[in-house]
């Protein structure tokens, strides 16, 4: 696990940070505590602390913590309302949970020596599948079998409809794939690039190119800032695509 074999004395492998392992030793079982589950639990605790402690005072002039919690709430609510309308607000708790969980996982993953659960397709895939299934169930409960007309575009000329139907079907079922891979791969690629630059810096220092090592260091500082931006934007994109899918289910185009 430590090196990729052909280097021998190569520094830390950039993919090492994504290895899931049990924290308290022993074999990995479905119930064992791993670094992934620990960081997910920390994210959930942080969200609970922010929202519960933040709204405990219910001050008219909010304290700093309260205004952060209110900002977060208002931001998600406004986005959902803009995209999915009044009917979408019924599903606000789900969207808020998804957004805050992904945001906190991404952001806490930026801490040194931490772990980013959202960089694993297994985690994001489950979330995307849950969105896909629940949105489809919502659509069928609201429209019944009429929802199947979603795949049969009436505004197109008759001979084109079967072709478009196939395309619509494929694009509908590809949704959970792209939804999960986008988040997972973004976090994976960003953290791997950070590690590559860190390894380059360490190798340059060890190789006696001390003055030149400033280049990867500067690159790493810039990339870290970019990664904070990406951490937020990917959580936002995940949420807004969920809202778009919800809107499709509720209003059918």
């Amino acid at each position, binding site marked *: 696990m430590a090196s990729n074999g052909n280097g021998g004395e190569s520094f830390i492998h950039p993919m090492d940070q994504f290895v899931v392992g049990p924290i308290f030793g022993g074999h990995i079982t479905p119930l064992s505590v791993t670094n992934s589950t620990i960081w997910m639990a920390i994210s959930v605790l942080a969200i609970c602390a922010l929202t519960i402690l933040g709204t405990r005072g219910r001050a008219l002039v909010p304290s700093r913590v309260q205004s952060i919690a209110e900002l977060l709430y208002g931001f998600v609510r406004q*986005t959902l309302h*803009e*995209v999915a309308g009044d009917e979408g607000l019924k599903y606000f708790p789900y969207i808020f949970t998804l957004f805050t969980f992904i945001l906190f996982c991404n952001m806490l993953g930026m801490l040194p020596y931490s772990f980013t659960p959202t960089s694993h397709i297994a985690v994001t895939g489950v979330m995307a599948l849950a969105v896909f299934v629940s949105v489809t169930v919502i659509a069928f409960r609201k429209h019944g079998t009429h929802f199947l007309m979603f795949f049969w575009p009436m505004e197109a000329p008759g001979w084109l409809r079967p072709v478009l139907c196939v395309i619509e079907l494929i694009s509908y079922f590809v949704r959970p794939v*792209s939804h999960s*891979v*986008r988040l997972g*791969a*973004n976090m*994976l*690629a960003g953290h791997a690039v950070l590690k590559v630059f860190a390894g380059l810096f360490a190798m340059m220092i060890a190789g006696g190119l001390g003055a030149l090592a400033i280049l990867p260091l500067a690159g790493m500082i810039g990339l870290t800032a970019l990664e904070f931006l990406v951490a937020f*934007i990917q959580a*936002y*994109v995940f949420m*807004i*695509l969920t809202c*778009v899918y919800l809107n499709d289910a509720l209003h059918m185009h």
Partner: protein
Amino acid sequence: MEAEAAALLGKYIGAGLACLAMAGAGIGVGHVAGNFLAGALRNPAAAKEQTATLFIGMAFAEALGIFGLVVAMLLLFAV
């Protein structure tokens, strides 16, 4: 042994070629952002409401580039 070396070579060349997806994703995301900026400078009042659409467009453009990364990953670690 020869065949194994050839397979390894193909794997690495394929993973490298998959990085060409970045070019397409770069063009796509640049198009989205550039056109958004062009429109936003013409009508700045309407720009703020369209930022959500901007991010949706960027996400779709970027997703196809990320599929390139997935192909590279599969070639390197799964095939």
